[in-house]
């Protein structure tokens, strides 16, 4: 119970950005004359506060929220760059004098800017595959909306449509790869994945536990009169597995040979 509270003390930049984002949305619903100026001031103040709070984090290194996020000097450095970039964009952006932006709601833009900044901060601190995917998607979805900000413009609409299609396909392919990485290593935590990969593929055998499948294994339990014929892949010297080197890269393949026949039709394991 103390861990979330302890982590919350080093999570203040993100908390401030979230509160600022909600306030901007609330103020934008009020039909008052000076709401655009108030939103601009609130956005700038929120970003400045997040910048100062990020500076005050110092050069400490620790994990937040049970290791879902990591706080380290390089992460804080990137947080400062990202918040500074958002400050520059909000400070330099002007709705006045723009033919395309005239009449559009400014509060939406400031809320989207705060949301994309918050997502960027989470991505800079992500320490888990799930957190990485979530923050990346938050940035993507917010960016899709920002590209389609000019609702009546065909170019903006078409650019957003192409962006979202390409982005979603590439995200899907990345997610498929992440799922295979989880299958190889048995964890979504980036430090654990690093440990498993650094110790070699022989440690990536957690998925080979046949406790639920009960399928026969290729490993010989008793000596046979003649070795099994495994023309492909070649059998490694000293290996007890008749599936050769492929059992290291795809461990479950060695356990259930009937599913993965491969080119070796004469295999007898």
């Amino acid at each position, binding site marked *: 119970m103390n861990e979330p509270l302890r982590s919350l003390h080093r999570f203040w930049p993100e908390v401030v950005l979230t509160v600022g984002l909600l306030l901007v949305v609330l103020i934008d619903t009020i039909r008052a004359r000076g709401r655009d100026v108030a939103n601009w001031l609130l956005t700038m103040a929120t970003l400045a506060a997040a910048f100062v709070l990020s500076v005050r984090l110092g050069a400490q290194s620790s994990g937040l929220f049970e290791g879902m996020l990591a706080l380290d000097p390089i992460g804080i450095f990137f947080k400062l760059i990202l918040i500074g970039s958002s400050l520059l964009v909000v400070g330099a952006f002007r709705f006045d004098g723009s033919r395309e932006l005239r009449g559009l709601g400014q509060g939406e833009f400031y809320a989207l800017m705060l949301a994309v900044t918050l997502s960027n901060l989470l991505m800079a601190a992500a320490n888990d595959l799930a957190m990485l995917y979530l923050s990346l998607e938050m940035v993507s979805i917010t960016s899709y909306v920002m590209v389609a900000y000019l609702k009546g413009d065909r170019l903006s609409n078409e*650019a957003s449509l192409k962006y*979202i299609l390409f982005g979603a396909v590439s995200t899907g392919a990345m997610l498929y790869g992440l799922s*295979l990485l989880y299958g190889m290593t048995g964890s979504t935590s980036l430090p654990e994945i690093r440990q498993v990969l650094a110790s070699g593929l022989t440690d990536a055998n957690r998925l080979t536990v046949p406790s639920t499948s009960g399928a026969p294994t290729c490993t010989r339990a008793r000596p046979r009169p003649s070795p099994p014929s495994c023309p492909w892949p070649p059998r490694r010297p000293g290996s007890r597995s008749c599936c050769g080197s492929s059992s290291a890269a795809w461990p479950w393949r060695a356990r259930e040979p009937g599913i993965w026949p491969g080119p070796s039709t004469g295999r007898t394991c």
Partner: protein
Amino acid sequence: MITLPHYLTVSAALFTLGLLGVLTRRNAVNVLMGIELILNSANLNLVAFSRFGPGNLQGQLFAVFVIVIAAAEVAVALAIVLTLYRLRRTPNLDEADFLRG
């Protein structure tokens, strides 16, 4: 008995079908359906690895997050497709060619 390779085979087939749908379909809604197939193939992988793997629930939790995010993404995409339809009176992606250069 259904084992891990069965799940992986179905997942790979789903991924291939989704990619085929994305590459061959002209209707934007059909392309979005292909994207959903790709995301769900990854979900199937995650749940299968979690079931036959080390016994933790990380994969299943990851799959739940993917489902939620995919729903949000498709909602945004459908809104953009709706705007495209309002501007051009067609959901055909081939006719969205203003940015061709």
